[in-house]
């Protein structure tokens, strides 16, 4: 369908707040390279929002690439597959991205033997004759989760609550976090596959229209997608103004459709379902190639990093191995972050395994790793102006500090998407989001207790 005509002239964006941090896309344009197989992988059993998986292998079991090793329990959960072939060494607690020690299957790698059902060819397979239900089942079976970082099980998103139906599919190619380029590179190298994945998702939720949103700092991807979209009816490419946090689900829906999801509601309430480009590619591979989700693209980057790059890594590979591909841990390292600088998690060490939600490894030099001393609030209202949810961060911080939960609830503290724009902007270096996160957790607990 090409780029919708109006958008050639004007870039769309969301309407409330937002910031524009230095983009620092150091690894942009770096071709995806395959990481060497590690000697051992640690595959966490909780890589998604929802219940952790039940391990179905035990010590000594032989597994192949793609063998199911963790079965999802309950609806909101996702299967886990082996990313390597070899022998299960043990099931043990391993520090994962959350910083906590949690159950993981540890496998000693031996060769690289894949499950025979997986189609390893590179040929594009466009045709899909499966029904909507079969597609969703296949996605659930492959253990696909939101790969932008939220890791919400994809099959759950594709199964709207009764009575609600989507009328638009939005594909998130925004990648608004500074530094990260894994989605960008994937869009350049697997563009056709992403379009087929989009068609499959459209079929799964029975919509006639899909829009792929891409920020305007990825002009090459926009051009390529616009070209390909001509042969994919119903799929449109929408260039977007560069503004953080445009990759936030609610912000992206607002930017593309002009519909705003009400507080506490799901995107489906305005008829939209959003999927990340990485997820869409995983859907293509799962449905067309029978390939479960056991590898992903990870950006390894940082100002001091010798060779910032985009790496295809098996789930469970230690971060350290990927950092070595990028030239090793720089001498001046203050912080190692899983994800981007705005919403990523700082890690206690670098032996943590890659998980389904690991979009990047960012290494920050020590000079930028520490926060400056906090000053009194000067009530400049900059945090209020940048909040993309229309909240009053300085007030929410005060209400949390003084534990005034009823007012915090009325001031919509639970609407916070934790994008960090407030803390980023504050000229007094106040840790606004730290407090709001605390208050949000507390108020969520109170609300839940009241419902029960």
């Amino acid at each position, binding site marked *: 369908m090409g780029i919708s005509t109006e958008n050639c002239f004007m870039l769309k964006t969301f309407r409330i707040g937002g*910031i524009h941090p230095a983009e620092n896309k150091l690894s942009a344009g770096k071709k995806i390279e395959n990481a060497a197989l590690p000697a051992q992988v640690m595959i966490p059993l909780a890589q998604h929002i929802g219940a952790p998986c039940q391990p179905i292998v035990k010590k000594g079991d032989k597994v192949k690439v793609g063998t199911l090793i963790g079965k999802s329990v309950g609806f909101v959960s996702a299967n886990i597959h082996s990313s390597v072939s070899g022998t299960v060494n043990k099931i043990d607690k391993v520090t994962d991205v959350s910083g906590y020690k949690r159950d993981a299957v540890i496998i000693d790698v031996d060769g690289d033997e894949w499950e025979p059902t997986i189609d390893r060819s590179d040929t594009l397979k466009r045709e899909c004759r499966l029904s909507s239900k079969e597609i969703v089942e296949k996605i659930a079976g492959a253990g696909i989760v939101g790969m932008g970082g939220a890791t919400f099980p994809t099959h759950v998103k594709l199964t709207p609550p009764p009575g609600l139906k989507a009328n638009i599919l939005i594909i998130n190619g925004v990648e608004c976090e500074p530094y990260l380029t894994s989605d960008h590179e994937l869009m350049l190298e697997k563009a056709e596959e992403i379009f087929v994945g989009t068609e499959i998702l459209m079929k799964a939720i029975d919509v006639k229209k899909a829009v792929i949103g891409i920020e305007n700092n990825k002009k090459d991807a926009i051009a390529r997608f616009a070209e390909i979209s001509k042969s994919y009816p119903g799929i449109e490419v929408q260039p977007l103004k560069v503004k953080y946090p445009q990759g936030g689900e609610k912000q992206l829906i607002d930017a593309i459709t002009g519909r705003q999801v009400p507080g506490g509601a799901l995107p489906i309430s305005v008829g939209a379902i959003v999927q990340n480009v990485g997820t869409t590619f995983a859907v293509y591979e799962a449905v067309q190639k029978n390939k479960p989700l056991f590898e992903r693209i990870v950006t390894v980057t940082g100002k001091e990093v010798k060779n910032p790059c985009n790496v295809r890594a098996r789930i469970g590979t230690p971060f350290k191995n990927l950092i070595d591909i990028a030239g090793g841990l720089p001498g001046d390292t203050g912080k190692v972050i899983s994800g981007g600088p705005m919403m990523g998690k700082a*890690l206690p060490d670098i032996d943590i395994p890659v998980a389904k939600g690991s979009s990047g490894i960012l290494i920050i030099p020590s000079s930028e790793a520490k926060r400056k001393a906090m000053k009194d609030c000067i009530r400049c209202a900059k945090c209020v102006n940048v909040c993309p949810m229309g909240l009053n961060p300085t007030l929410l911080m005060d209400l949390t500090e003084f534990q005034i939960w009823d007012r915090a609830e009325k001031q919509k503290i639970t609407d916070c998407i934790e994008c960090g724009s407030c803390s980023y902007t504050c000229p007094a270096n106040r840790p606004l989001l730290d407090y709001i996160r605390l208050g949000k957790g507390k108020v969520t607990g109170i609300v839940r207790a009241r419902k029960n």
Partner: protein
Amino acid sequence: MENKLIVSPSPHIHSGDSIPKNMYGVLIALIPAFLLSLYVFGLDALILTLASILFCVVFEYFISKFILKSEPTISDGSAIITGVLLAFNVPSNLPIWILAIGALAAIGIGKMSFGGLGKNIFNPALVGRIFLLISFPAQMTTWPAPVLESATDAISSATVLSQLNLSSALPTLSSMFVGTESGSLGETSAIALLLGLIYMLWKKIITWHIPISILVTVAIFTAILYIFDPQPQYNPIIHLASGGLMLGAIFMATDYVTSPLTKKGMVIYGFFIGIITVCIRLWGAYPEGVSFAIVLMNGFTPLINYYTTPKRFGEKQKNG
């Protein structure tokens, strides 16, 4: 190596914005008005401004060091702004010792007695100005003629607004806009002050909501009066270009600490400042009402903050 990694919650980067950056940005925005005051009032303006800055900074330093026993905060630039704004609000021939008293009231009462920057309720410079206006009414309302017009600068002349009240001959509008008129130091040139506004908007130090709602309110209110009774004292253009309205609307009412946080609140605040200003100017005892209007609305700011909320995402929005 690993145990040396720093772990903290996100976000892990910062804009680099700081309190001094904003304060020095305001000072840069004040430069055009300052240069014009030098041109109009000569050396007096320079001496008065420097003295005022010195008094404010020194008072803040000693009060924080010896009375509050806290880390002095003079380097953040806020005391310098108070000094400049106080000087901009007095006539160029004000005795230095009176200015010192004003600075002490501004910093001591207006700012430090509340605990310093961020905690004060009223705009410190205006506290100083009003303190002087009440304590030294004669000295505070006798303005020397600009040195441009007269070789002897001790001759007193009325400001445009007091001329309005006295119904005497008015100066030309162009001289009011350019600023070659008598008045307090920083308030004579609307153009110089507007340049400062443009700079602050460009640098995103402030948003348009407060200054524009004040100016628009004053313009509309006086225009309505002017339509019914076309007397010069109701002329909206004279009101906009005269006196401290521009100075107040652009630099005093926009003070971060003492103005509302939400855009809705800012518009309400600006609207009432405009209304009160015109009421005092036309029907009050003082020729100038901006200072009183701002300080009055400073007092209402916590209440405005309590009752206004930002425009929430997903709430009462047209869904397209």
